[in-house]
């Protein structure tokens, strides 16, 4: 075996190395002494790793017989996710030092890096075996993370729900893959599948296989009708984990979805399964929106909001073009910074006061003007209001979807646009609670930790800056051409 092939997997190796460093530090330091430095050391090391992943060039090589590809687009999405993880680490640094969690903080970082490693494999996989390995290592440790608040029954319940659905969806996916294996004549390489089913009739077996694969990945992305676990898990999990789950896990799965459906099943992209996708996207956006309206708990609220956002991300899959993939990656980037800004505020308030209800935000601007300001911008960005980045990402993804000029796609965009109005309504409910609802502030004035503020500033900077300045979008579209 040619071990130099591992050289192409540099991002994964960096994360793996980081995992080992944290693991050794955690194991061989004593509680209370050197362990104090675990959090800052890990955060700084990860920051350096993220910079390294941004900077290393991608060669476009395929290794391990084409199972793994080191392409520009894969590296770009990994780099984007790394920014998100860095922000999550900053946001969680206060929480991991709390009494209840501090003793296990090493585990938190280890599990987090393992899942990130799995997601990176998922992104780069061009063979279903490697993809499933990535998927499993990305989802099973997450269940342990969801259960991290040992003493809260909700956390246990959430973890239980999560692991059941994760395992079940993996099973569904694997059944689908076994059908695909039969159809492709005994290969699980994306290219082979594509070649084998090109021009074939839309057989019953193919439809079932596609439906199972969509369902399997749909669970990870919490697309409707596979979304039922989302709200409970988001609510029960510690907020740091929820934000990780909602942006990083979702972003990587969305990218992998695109790769699979363009590279493996692109040739049968018509007829039945196209309509299947229309239905899934419309349902995801609409149901996510309608349920979000009624939520009173901020974390449940964000769960439904993120379901509908996943629907918008999925619009990128319908384009099947480099422009669409680029717009989708850019959407993921904007979604990462906007959503993390919201979770930054939620977790800051929850850490200080334990309040997560939407009516606890009444009059927040009187006590915490800066948090209110960040939350307002983030809500506007999620709703797609200019001049914030969310407007640009929505506009660009809609533009790329209508590129083919087909009438069904126009109608799909129309439905998505009408849904932006519904989403604007519930995002404005939060703005209304903060600025308009009468009465004294229910959350007293406080100053959050430096790392939390830094994370929020990074998010707000991203929201304000990267819409008006097109560099990230250009980068995404340029790299998307080299999938």
């Amino acid at each position, binding site marked *: 075996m040619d071990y130099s092939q591992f050289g192409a997997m540099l991002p994964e190796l960096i994360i793996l190395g980081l995992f080992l460093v944290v693991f050794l530090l955690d194991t061989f330091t004593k509680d209370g002494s050197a362990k104090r430095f675990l959090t800052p050391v890990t955060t700084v090391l990860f920051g350096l790793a993220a910079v390294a992943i941004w900077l290393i060039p991608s060669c476009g090589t395929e290794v391990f017989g084409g199972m793994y590809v080191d392409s520009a687009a894969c590296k770009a999405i990994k780099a984007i996710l790394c920014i998100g993880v860095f922000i999550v680490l900053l946001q969680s640094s206060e929480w991991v030092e709390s009494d209840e969690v501090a003793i296990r903080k090493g585990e938190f970082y280890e599990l987090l890096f393992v899942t990130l490693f799995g997601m990176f494999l998922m992104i780069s996989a061009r063979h279903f075996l490697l993809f499933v390995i990535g998927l499993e290592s990305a989802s099973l440790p997450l269940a342990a993370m969801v259960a991290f608040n040992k003493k809260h029954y909700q956390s246990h319940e959430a973890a239980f729900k999560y692991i059941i659905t994760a395992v079940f969806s993996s099973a569904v996916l694997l059944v689908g893959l076994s059908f695909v294996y039969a159809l492709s004549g005994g290969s699980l390489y994306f290219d082979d599948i594509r070649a084998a089913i090109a021009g074939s009739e839309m057989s019953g077996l193919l439809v079932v296989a596609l439906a199972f694969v969509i369902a399997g990945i749909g669970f990870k992305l919490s697309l409707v009708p596979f979304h039922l676990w989302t709200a409970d898990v988001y609510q029960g999990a510690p907020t740091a984990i929820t934000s990780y789950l909602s942006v990083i896990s979702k972003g990587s799965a969305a990218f992998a979805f695109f790769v699979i459906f363009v590279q493996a099943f692109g040739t049968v992209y018509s007829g039945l399964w196209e309509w299947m996708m229309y239905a899934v996207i419309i349902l995801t956006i609409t149901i996510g929106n309608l349920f979000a309206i009624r939520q009173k708990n901020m974390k449940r609220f964000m769960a439904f909001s993120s379901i509908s956002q996943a629907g918008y991300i999925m619009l990128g899959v319908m384009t099947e073009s480099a*422009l669409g993939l*680029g717009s989708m990656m850019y959407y993921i980037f904007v979604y990462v910074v906007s959503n993390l800004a919201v979770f930054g505020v939620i977790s800051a308030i929850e850490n200080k006061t334990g309040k997560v209800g939407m009516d606890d935000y009444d009059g927040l601007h009187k006590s915490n003007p800066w948090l209110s300001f960040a939350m307002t911008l983030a809500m*506007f960005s999620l709703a797609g*209001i*200019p*001049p914030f980045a969310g*407007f*640009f990402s929505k*506009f*660009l993804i*809609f*533009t*790329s979807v*209508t*590129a083919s*000029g087909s009438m069904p796609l*126009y109608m799909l*965009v*129309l439905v998505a*646009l*009408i849904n*932006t*109005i519904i989403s*604007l*309504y519930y995002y*404005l409910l939060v*703005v*209304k609670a903060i*600025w*308009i609802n009468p009465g004294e502030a229910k959350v007293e004035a406080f100053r959050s930790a430096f790392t939390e503020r830094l994370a929020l500033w990074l998010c707000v900077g991203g929201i304000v800056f990267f819409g008006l300045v*097109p560099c990230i*979008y*250009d980068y995404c*579209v340029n790299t998307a051409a080299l999938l």
Partner: protein
Amino acid sequence: MFSNILIWFVIVPVLMMAGLACCGNGNMKAIRGVMVTGSIVLLAMAVWLVVDFLGLRASGVADEMLYAGSWMWYKPLNIHLAVGVDGISVLMILLSAVIVFAGTFASWKINPLPKNFFLWFCLLSTGVFGFFISIDMFTMFMFYEVALIPMYLLIGVWGTGRKEYSAMKLTLMLMGGSAFLMLGLLGIYWHSAPEGGQLTWNILEISHNNSIDAGWQNLLFCFTFVGFGVLGAMFPFHTWSPDGHACAPTAVSMLHAGVLMKLGGYGCFRIAIFLLPSAAQELAWIFIVLTGISIVYGAFSACVQTDLKYINAYSSVSHCGMVLFAILMLNKTAMTGGILQMLSHGLMTALFFALIGMIYGRTHTRDIRQMGGLMKIMPYLGVCYMIAGFASLGLPGLSGFVAEMTIFFGAFENASLFHRVFVIAATTSIVITAVYILRVVGKLILGPVHDEHHLQLTDASWWERLSTVTLILCLAGIGFFPNWINETIQQSFVPIINALNLAAV
């Protein structure tokens, strides 16, 4: 980029926002300082722009858009930040600058959170100015939405009455309009060049390429016209307007009715009709019916209202309907009238809302049944109110007369029975307008004093006088010297009339 004067109309409000962000929250002096300086700079720039524009035109520069500039923004989709103005946009910029200036003084004593109020107010102005300077559809749409969203907070936080309901209704309805608008713009973009050509968002290039086939034009025309029509308060999408205006704080009503509703008319003119001329000819009748209903229905509704702001809001529905009605007549005279009506209505309605705000600030009611004889109590405000009323009902010498006469003359040029019937129906609104204006003037201004307590009230203060005098001077300016405006906008109709003639062949 920064050597282009037009860009500065966006930069100055942004600088004002930066300046405000540096002010302390309760430091009224600093906040007012920033706002007054900024709005004077904007006004001066707008006046200079008009003078320089006229100079350039007089020296024979015949380009469609002057001061044009274009900078690449989102390269993969060929999105530019493209700016340029013709006579119409120049006047709209002047109108906006005047109203921002007057609005600043009208909200001299805004409370609570003055700093945040002016921050959102400046963001609103950024959107308005940005919209009028853009000639790239993407930039235009972006600024359009920038102008819409601050309304939510401005009404929700600083408004009166059922402000939460109204703010939400207004925002959602306008955003709903912009959803349709966006779909229309996307369609225009993907058909903006013949097969194989470079697609573009630039409206001049799109009109020049003229490559959208008739079927798509019809679809896109409906999307864009409805999209802008919602903001232009076209029946049946006008219902946000009465509630929104009634609950908004004074300066926001002024800016919204005065300028923002003009965005609708301007957009219909610049995008729906200019870029989709054959659909405009084919489908104009649908919207003539709808705007005809707006005109008459708005006027009748105003007759039965008792809240001053509702009266004025319905009157705005009627007058803004007139703008769209005029544009849909698709000939030069009527369109000239439409532009005049935009200016006239913008100034007049801003004056109305400013005065209503001032009266409400004193009497704490807007119900005309609970007030009377204001002429005896506050003669200055009473006289101003009468002037605004006369402008509204089209008294010669003020702007309303010039605008409405031109519209009806132009509209009657269309020889078909359908057009004539609707023009005649629309002219009845002049009479109905007189009814509701004179009813208010008679009861509120001239009638007997209704409430003894009102006798203690004071007349206008200096900042209120400054605000109203500016607007009245502009109103009379248009009324006495309409030719000057006419000359400014003359040449702007050439491309659109050419496009319409080309499509008619």
